[in-house]
């Protein structure tokens, strides 16, 4: 019932906002401002997203952030493709955080999915932003290529090309139909004449652009499908790339913070003197939920902070623990109705659990701000620069127009850097207003780990009935968590009766995004449980899955290819197991096969991983491979050892010592990634590689050890 109602509300908003989404371009005045902000005299700005200079340099403005996915390079490939541009003259810049550069392509993409009832994986809060058509610039939902790329870059490139041709036709006094384009030139072969894009751009940009120009067919691609080197890599190997942590300004001070250990707790009192006695410390600032020490440098600020003994309240959550949350969730799940036992068949039920998880980006939070004469200038790395600007304005009590925000390179994100739950945005604005200098606020790793915006903790009860024929007759799940994850709780299998029931459980933590959002936990639950069902039916887990997939479908093809490439069914040494899992996330289907055994300490050792991916068209195969590998390794890391727990309402973990990430030696020594282009609509790549990793590993361990692990992290649970 909840789902229906939500879809209706979003549907209604989509209809009301139809005019807004009717065009892929920003409205006239915002677009003019965006062009004015980026285009100099003599240059041509096309819908603001592409700019061509007299020397033929093409600048592509990306509304989404590249924090390592390679999306900026891929977006440039997509623009260059439709533009017929000379690749050597292409560059990419992050679009400034102003409304004319709002990501209308993303809004359009998500709205399209919502209106078709395809709102899979879209978190509720994001759906709400989209439905209200709030100008956003967010990077998430594995959306850069499939939405910003398809809707903005390719269409702007194609429209700009047509405008350049029209301008050339007029200048050469020939019919447009006689003109072709290549390497940033418009060519009239008949008269052996050509004009460079740079000569035509300023005038061509003044022409009206086609709103929905035709795009190239895949067979004609010259840039899409290639793997040019990424633009951002040279600066990341010589130390010159400037991250949020690296901002340095004259007279700048450095601050660090200690927040109430329990989320929702407040600062009650603090004696400032011990910090002020530390050399280099200049201010102690009290915030509602935190105390901040401002000093000449980070080390002095840290020592000042360590000298303090602040008192915090617990926000009324002092009795909360991970165990109490699981107990409450189990109780909610037990309220779900029992599945009828199939006649002559088997009934199988199992309870699974997943902990809170931390994104653990390698760069701890750092933001710099300078408040002067009623204006705020700020620097940092967030997953939505435009929203960050608005949030800074609100926190400082000034107008958005009086805030300048500089988006810096981000050292990871994985869902942690959506500004709506980045308290550092409000903190840095508050601190900047109280000091005369620019101030850089750095969160220690301890604060970063223990004050996260975590993937929610979930408990699920799964039930299924196997018919006398050994086929799945019914499947029902009851799961309790903050946030409705029903769309991620589905399976691709054909089951006569399927139901996933959400029981709302609200803790004191925010319901945050994680790489692959809720597909990460629910992929583990469902793909482990289907494996249990296969064994209960006495069938091979791969064969059992394929018997329940529609013939000729994308899922079956991906699964078959993974089994073939991983040499499914071939013998393995004693103590080694092979597991398979199949998930869909953000329009992309991924199957992974893992070979694993136990180390002497009982922890899993992954020997080999094979991934097969159908995301439709692949723009940059080398980046695409990196994204799937990265997702797979992160999935293994979370599955093997990562867990955030609460005790007395506060997070227990503090740093990488008790929140261990997978190291190089623990990553699969053999890992291969394969793409199938089914011709399906283009899907995401940043996230879909993660969900199959945990269940494929758990399924492999079951084969290796006979032990079924139903609660993450796995650690040494498979040990005899």
């Amino acid at each position, binding site marked *: 019932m909840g789902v229906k109602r939500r879809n209706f509300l979003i549907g209604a908003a989509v209809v009301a906002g139809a005019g807004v989404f009717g065009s892929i371009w920003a409205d006239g005045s915002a677009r003019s401002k965006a062009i004015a902000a980026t285009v100099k005299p003599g240059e041509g700005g096309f819908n603001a997203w592409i700019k061509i200079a007299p020397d033929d340099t093409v600048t592509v403005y990306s509304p989404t952030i590249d924090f390592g996915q390679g999306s900026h390079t891929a977006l440039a490939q997509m623009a260059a493709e439709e533009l017929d541009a000379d690749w050597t003259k292409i560059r990419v810049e992050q679009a400034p955080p102003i409304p004319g550069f709002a990501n209308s392509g993303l809004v359009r993409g998500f709205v399209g999915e919502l209106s078709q009832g395809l709102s899979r994986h879209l978190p509720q809060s994001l759906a709400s932003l989209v439905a209200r058509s709030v100008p956003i610039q967010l990077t998430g939902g594995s959306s850069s290529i499939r939405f910003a790329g398809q809707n903005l870059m390719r269409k702007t490139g194609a429209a700009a090309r047509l405008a350049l041709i029209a301008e050339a036709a007029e200048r050469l006094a020939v019919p447009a139909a006689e003109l072709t384009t290549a390497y940033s030139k418009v060519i009239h072969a008949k008269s052996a004449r050509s004009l460079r894009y740079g000569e035509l751009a300023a005038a061509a940009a003044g022409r009206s652009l086609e709103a929905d120009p035709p795009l190239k067919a895949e067979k004609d691609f010259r840039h899409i499908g290639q793997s040019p080197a990424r633009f951002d890599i040279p600066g990341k190997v010589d130390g010159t790339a400037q991250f949020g942590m690296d901002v340095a300004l004259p007279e700048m001070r450095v601050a660090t913070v200690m927040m109430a250990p329990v989320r929702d707790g407040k600062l009650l009192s603090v004696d400032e003197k011990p910090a002020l006695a530390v050399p280099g410390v200049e201010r102690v600032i009290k915030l509602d939920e935190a105390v901040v020490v401002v000093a000449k440098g980070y080390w002095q600020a840290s020592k000042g902070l360590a000298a303090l003994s602040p008192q915090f309240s617990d926000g009324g959550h002092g009795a909360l623990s991970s165990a109490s949350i699981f107990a409450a969730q189990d109780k909610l799940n037990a309220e779900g109705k029992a599945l009828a036992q199939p006649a002559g068949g088997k009934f199988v039920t199992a309870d699974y659990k997943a902990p809170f998880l931390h994104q653990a980006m*390698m760069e701890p939070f750092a933001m710099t701000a300078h408040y002067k004469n009623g204006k705020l200038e700020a620097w940092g790395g967030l997953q939505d620069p435009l929203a960050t600007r608005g949030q800074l304005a609100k926190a400082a009590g000034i107008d958005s127009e009086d805030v300048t925000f500089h988006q810096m390179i981000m*050292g990871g994100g994985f869902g942690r850097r959506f500004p709506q739950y980045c308290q550092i945005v409000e903190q840095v604005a508050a601190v900047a207003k109280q000091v005369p200098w620019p101030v850089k606020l750095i969160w220690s790793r301890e604060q970063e780990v223990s004050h996260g915006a975590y993937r929610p903790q979930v408990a699920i009860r799964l039930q299924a009935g196997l018919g006398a024929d050994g086929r799945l007759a019914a499947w029902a799940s009851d799961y309790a968590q903050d946030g409705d994850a029903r769309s991620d709780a589905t399976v691709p299998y054909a089951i006569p009766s399927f139901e996933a029931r959400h029981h709302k459980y609200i803790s004191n933590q925010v319901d945050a995004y994680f790489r692959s959002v809720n597909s990460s936990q629910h992929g583990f639950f469902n793909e482990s449980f289907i494996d249990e069902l296969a064994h209960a039916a006495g069938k091979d887990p791969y064969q059992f899955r394929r018997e329940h997939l529609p013939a000729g479908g994308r899922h079956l093809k991906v699964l078959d290819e993974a089994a073939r490439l991983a040499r499914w069914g071939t013998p393995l040494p004693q103590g080694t197991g092979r597991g398979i899992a199949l998930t869909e996330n953000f329009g992309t289907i991924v199957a992974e096969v893992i070979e694993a055994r136990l180390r002497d300490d009982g922890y899993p050792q992954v020997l080999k991983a094979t991934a097969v991916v159908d995301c439709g068209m692949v723009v940059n195969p080398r980046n695409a491979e990196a994204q799937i590998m990265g997702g797979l390794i992160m999935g293994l890391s979370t599955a093997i050892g990562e867990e955030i727990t609460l005790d007395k309402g506060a997070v227990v973990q503090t740093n990488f010592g008790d929140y261990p990430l997978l190291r190089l030696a623990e990553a699969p020594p053999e890992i291969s990634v*394969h793409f199938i282009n089914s011709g399906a609509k283009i899907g995401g790549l940043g996230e879909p590689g993660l969900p199959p990793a945990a269940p494929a590993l758990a399924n492999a361990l079951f084969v290796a050890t006979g032990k079924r692990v139903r609660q993450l992290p796995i650690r040494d649970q498979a040990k005899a």
Partner: protein
Amino acid sequence: MAITATVNGKPAEFTGEPDTPLLWALREELGLTGTKFGCGIAACGACSVHVGGEVVRSCSLPISEVAGKAVTTIEGLKAADGTLHAVQQAWIDIQVPQCGYCQSGQIMAAVALIKQSAKPSHAQIDEAMTNLCRCGTYPRIREAILKATGQAAEKSAAAATGAA
């Protein structure tokens, strides 16, 4: 009172308190921000630099212990003519970095490894490369080290078929 050392071949002076970690002295006093702050407890390796030719985690090394020593950071790896170190070049050729935040430390760790063993084995790579990477670039780090040392990489990427 100032502590003197050689940083990237040039004399340098640190004026902070002697217990200041080398990391913050490099970043805030010398403006060498290529060396990153990751955890502050020598667990992640984002702050790896060389002191006296050995790789160290600079977040946990006070400047009092580098007095008179030679420090090399990521900014000091290039040759005088700007040519990248073979490891840096391999990092570009293999397209290793994703977010890039850990990569200065990874490269410093790899350079130190290669100094010790010109052609490191897989086991030696496993043992030496303990720095954390959240993006999951480990397979390419391994491949780039093999490439930089002239060893035929067991090319994991070879399996990556294109969009064909």
